[in-house]
């Protein structure tokens, strides 16, 4: 019974972070939401009795995909609209 509640909660959080990743206009937040999606997906793989796949998805989906997206955002634009520069707090040195 506890597994059913745990699985339903994880699936709901996965769908919520996927919708947030597509809907958000600030690309940095969308990329972090995709990393959270991979993390919850790795736990669902473990509940479905597949430990090898859970290890691989946790290592590749969370760490490496997020860093490649962040470097791509750093070398191009940050917002989806490009004419829309809100008040973003950046720290300078």
């Amino acid at each position: 019974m506890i597994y059913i509640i745990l699985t339903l909660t994880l699936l709901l959080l996965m769908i919520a972070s996927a919708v947030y990743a597509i809907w958000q206009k600030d690309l940095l937040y969308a990329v972090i939401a995709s990393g959270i999606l991979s993390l919850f997906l790795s736990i669902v793989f473990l509940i479905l009795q597949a430990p090898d796949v859970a290890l691989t998805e946790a290592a590749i989906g969370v760490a490496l995909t997020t860093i490649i997206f962040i470097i791509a955002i750093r070398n191009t634009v940050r917002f989806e609209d490009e004419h829309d520069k809100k008040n973003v707090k950046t720290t300078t040195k």
Partner: protein
Amino acid sequence: MEKYLNILNIAIYGSAVLLMLIGLYGALTKKSLIKIVLGLSILDSGVHLLMIAIGYLKDGTAPIFSPGNEDKMNIMVDPIPQALVLTAIVIGFGVTAVALSLVIRLYRHHNTLRIDEIKKLKW
């Protein structure tokens, strides 16, 4: 126990198909190139969840033999989709990396990332 299979049946297959549709919607509708690549990555995650969910057996156990486990061959989950998904995850990461490097080159040439602007600049 019939209700157990009914709730998880709809929930896992439904959320795998929903992830695929969300990724496909992001790849078809959005205008910024990085959003399109993000949608393709979410589509990959949905397909992997669908393949692992097909091989599940009710009250199954992981396909690993150990000294106390050697006579439970009847209730092990299917190991073949797991081997296929292992390969697919690594190849999906490689495709995402090459696609993002192409996006960086396109930005340096056209100085914009929206696909409706790029269509206007012919040369």
